[in-house]
């Protein structure tokens, strides 16, 4: 992460470093390691010159688009940070590619890391790049490089500004590029893996590991699971839909970073990217062959929350939020075009895409730890903007608020409350003061802080609270300005719930828990950046704010039971069929119920299938296996 002296890229014009640029003198391995240790202080361009960033040929979309649209075949600006520990696989600090095919029961040879060539080679020793795409090893490198890049997109200063752990214990996500035949790709926390399958369409074999959109979408699930692991334990369809949204958002944001693609878009739309027909036309290519879920097309929709109320299809629902973020992209680029005299359309668009990285990603750190709704995200987006840009001379917040209200994600009352004049930064009203440096130093200190302030933080007095996560982030804003460090503390507790009534089907009479908690974001001065809460129905005090909090918690509990009823009625909850022989996709319902410590927990299953869920079949009968 380059934090102090980044080079501001203005998009087209800045030529990337090539392999031919001679370094000042030959670097030894020791030199390289030392530079790697100091990379925070080196700008991106210098990193490229010093080979601390290596370019890889990856498909911009997929091989078929590459055939039809040669200008968009390979991404010309794809850089992956070098690591001292790169190995065959490819294997890096965060990813391990295992090319195992479960159907054929075969293991393909791994791509070999060649330090001298700064690249991976196939079993014959030939470098894997756009001139050598046939071997399976190219697929391995393609998938790996896309994932490394996407992880950096999230971890760097314009993203969350911190290292993001996975949702499982361990550092390496296993990547399986040819898992077997099937129209499938999924993230599976329990095996710490991203699995990509392949299928035949006529005479063509389609590999999902070569579809950049699919890789980004599945990566979105993995990274969100790392940022908010408790979202997988969600009963509401909205939280499942949010998982889908992050996948789509990742795919769109990274795709729009591709310069030739942006230029083609601008050409096709005559500079007005809001033009429905031409944008759809360009997006037609994407996903046409691979799947029925073209990300750009789904972004250009007019769905509102009212249109998806009560729906159980996560991807269908997610379109409301994806659409809202795309509305913001369009409004922002229009703004850049109108308000800046020197701006050209390409410039305006590039500025927009750059800004969207932090506008859309940084709010993820402000989300509540559990049970996220689209409204939570919208509030986080607005708050993140306020933190980065308190004066807001261009009225970005008003523009975004307007988009969220039009989509029904926020209501006008909330909008009015947000627009009321207020102090941007306030101190948290605590019972017992704790120094923010101490809070952030260890979980034990964070626990003490929470316990000393149960009343002020609306944590019930008689339930144990858990520190779900504690970390510090160094985020950047548009000009590469460092924001004050953020201390992010997530705390949760479990409220006991007994399911009573026939509407709970065979769960009638059983105990479960409702997750409650909050995310507290403080800056290094101890100022409150954000506080997103999911209250419980138990009393935490007698003051009016405590009563209000309890009221909200009671409402949450009712909504939780209502959601659970609907899930059960529509047959979307079942028990997982574990087997050493592998998974039978058909037999895995969208939500599985498991017993943990004597109570039921519901968790989202990996979603099998890469097509849209618009025609999703409802009913428990769908998961019944025929025997």
């Amino acid at each position, binding site marked *: 992460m380059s934090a102090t002296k980044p080079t501001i890229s203005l998009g087209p014009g800045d030529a990337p470093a090539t392999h031919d640029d001679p370094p000042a003198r030959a670097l030894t391995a020791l030199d390289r390691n030392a530079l790697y240790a100091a990379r925070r202080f080196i700008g991106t361009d210098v990193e490229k010159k010093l080979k601390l960033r290596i370019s890889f040929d990856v498909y911009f979309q997929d091989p078929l688009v590459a055939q039809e649209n040669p200008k968009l075949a390979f991404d010309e600006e794809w850089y992956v940070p070098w690591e001292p520990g790169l190995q*065959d696989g490819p294997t890096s600090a965060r990813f391990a590619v295992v090319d195992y095919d479960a159907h054929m029961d075969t293991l393909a040879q791994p791509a070999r890391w060649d330090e001298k060539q700064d690249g991976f080679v196939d079993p014959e020793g030939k470098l894997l790049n756009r001139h050598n795409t046939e071997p399976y090893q190219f697929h391995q490198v393609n998938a790996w490089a896309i994932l490394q890049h996407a992880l950096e997109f999230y971890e760097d200063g314009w993203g969350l500004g911190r290292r993001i752990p996975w949702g499982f214990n361990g550092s390496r996500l*296993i990547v399986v590029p040819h898992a077997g035949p099937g129209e499938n790709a999924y993230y599976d926390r329990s095996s710490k893996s991203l699995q990509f399958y392949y299928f035949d369409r006529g005479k063509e074999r389609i590999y999902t590991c070569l579809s950049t959109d699919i890789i980004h979408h599945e990566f979105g699930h993995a990274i969100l699971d790392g940022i908010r692991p408790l979202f997988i334990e969600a009963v509401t369809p909205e939280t499942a839909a949010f998982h889908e949204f992050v996948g789509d958002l990742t795919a769109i944001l990274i795709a729009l970073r591709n310069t030739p693609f942006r230029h083609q878009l601008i050409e096709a739309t005559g500079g007005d990217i809001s033009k429905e027909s031409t944008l759809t036309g360009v997006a037609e290519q994407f996903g046409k062959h691979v799947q029925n879920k073209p990300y750009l097309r789904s972004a250009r929709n007019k769905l509102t929350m009212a249109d998806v109320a009560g729906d159980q299809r996560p991807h269908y629902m997610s379109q409301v939020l994806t659409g809202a973020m795309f509305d913001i992209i369009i409004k922002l680029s229009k703004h850049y075009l109108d308000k800046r005299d020197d701006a050209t359309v390409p410039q305006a668009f590039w500025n927009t895409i750059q800004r969207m990285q932090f506008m859309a990603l940084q709010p993820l750190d402000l989300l509540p730890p559990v049970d996220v709704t689209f409204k939570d995200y919208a509030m986080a987006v607005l708050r993140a903007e306020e933190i980065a840009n308190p004066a807001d001379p261009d009225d970005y917040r008003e523009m975004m608020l307007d988009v969220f209200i039009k989509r029904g994600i926020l209501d006008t009352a909330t909008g009015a409350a947000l627009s009321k004049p207020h102090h941007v930064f306030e101190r948290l009203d605590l019972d017992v003061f704790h120094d923010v440096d101490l809070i952030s130093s260890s979980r034990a200190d964070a626990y003490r802080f929470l316990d000393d302030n149960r009343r002020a933080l609306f944590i019930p007095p008689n339930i144990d609270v858990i520190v779900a996560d504690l970390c510090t982030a160094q985020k950047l804003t548009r000009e590469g300005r460092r924001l004050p460090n953020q201390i992010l503390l997530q705390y949760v507790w479990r409220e006991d719930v007994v399911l009573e009534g026939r509407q709970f089907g065979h769960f009638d009479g059983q105990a479960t828990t409702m997750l409650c908690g909050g995310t507290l974001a403080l800056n290094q001065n101890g100022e409150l950046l954000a506080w997103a809460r999911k209250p419980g129905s138990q009393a935490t005090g007698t003051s009016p704010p405590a009563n209000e909090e309890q009221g909200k918690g009671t409402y949450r509990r009712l909504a939780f039971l209502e959601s659970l009823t609907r899930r059960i009625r529509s047959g979307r909850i079942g028990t997982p069929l574990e087997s050493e022989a592998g998974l039978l996709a058909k037999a895995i319902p969208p939500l599985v119920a498991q017993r943990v410590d004597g109570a039921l927990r519901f968790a989202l299953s990996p979603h099998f299938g890469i097509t849209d869920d618009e025609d999703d079949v409802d009913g428990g*009968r769908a998961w019944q296996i*025929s025997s």
Partner: protein
Amino acid sequence: MADKLLVRAYNVEVGDCLYCRIPKARKVGNQIDDFHMLIDCGTVGTTSNLAAAISNLETMLPDAGGGKKRLDLLVVTHEHADHIAGFDPAVFQNVTIGAIWMNTAMDPAHPQAELTNQLHSLATTAMRNLARLNLNLGPDLQDLVALYSLDNDDAMNALRETLPQANGITPKYVHAGKTPSELGLPLHNATIRVIGPEHDIDHFYLGEDVDETLQGLIAAGAMFRESMTPSTARPTNISESDFRRLRSRMMSTALAFAELASEVTNNTSIVLLIEWQGKRLLFVGDAEWNTKFKAGKHNASWNVMWHERKTRLNAPIDFLKIGHHGSVNATPWNDKEDGQVTEPSTILDAILPVPASGATATAKAVVSTMRKNYQTIPRSALLVELGKRVANVRNYQTLLGANASSLPKFDEFEKTWLGSPQPARTDCENALTGAAFVDVEVEA
């Protein structure tokens, strides 16, 4: 007594073995007497129940001479162990069988079942390979593997060769649309119609979309090669336990194929419509339903029947042999129970309408079942729904009293529904009185 049609559902745990006697429905020459038939004889439970059932059956059958008993028709609905495990020539040595019917998909030479048969043999190979690996599969998937056990080969051999030879007959592969004269039964004042499966098995129950995938997998596929030995290659960048865990979370094409083959086999069950003295009786084997009929795609039996044989189905029936041991997907209904009208709910309302307020139901039903490995079979909510539409209902909570809690998985899958009227169940009747069968009589 003699004027009543009898259906006797033997308690064979998870399986079907049903005897049906149609009074005065057989005419040979000038002789008129009762027509005796047996539908299926199988279980995935204790096989001794099957031998006991056939022993009892012999007491119901007339003499055939030579110390044997006469059975006019043996129907084998489909090729699953819980319907064929009992076809051991030794068990049937005292029975003279007049005719043996199997469904047309069980005919290895049927050209319009070629792909289905290929699918079935691939699934069989894959499942037998899987069984040999002795992996931990969990109870539900263990059942799926058990469906393809070697014992099935013995049963099928008995049905195709040994029993026909012993009785001097050739088995008939039946399908919907065959005329009574083609079916060739010595019936009198009664008809037995086959309304499922359709003759073109591959077209209706496999469909064109499955075809493409199947062809591709036949070309590849280690799993489908006989006596496959697992490879010993191991990745060097992850641990052995991580690799084992990974494999258990990857899609198994073998299981997917077996499941699909199993589904198709269920959907090619023989569905019989018996008409006698104005009464209609439906025996559905394990036929399944789906949301609606989709031309050219792979369909479920009920939807195909609703589409192709609607005239036969679109009227109230007087008896239903509840499909697939009370499984949620074998009796068409609105399983979401949200009051919506769907194709399956329409079918149910047509064959077993809810009686108008004040009126009582006249139809009857029986389910041959036991809650075992697949814990959601029978689906209690479905049985309660059917209980609203039939006359021979029982309140098993009241009848069993404290013993009700001894029913398998009582708390989760019985308790909530046991206090509502349900149609006769072989498992509950057995728990109640040790009954070896449940009788349902239909009066003219």
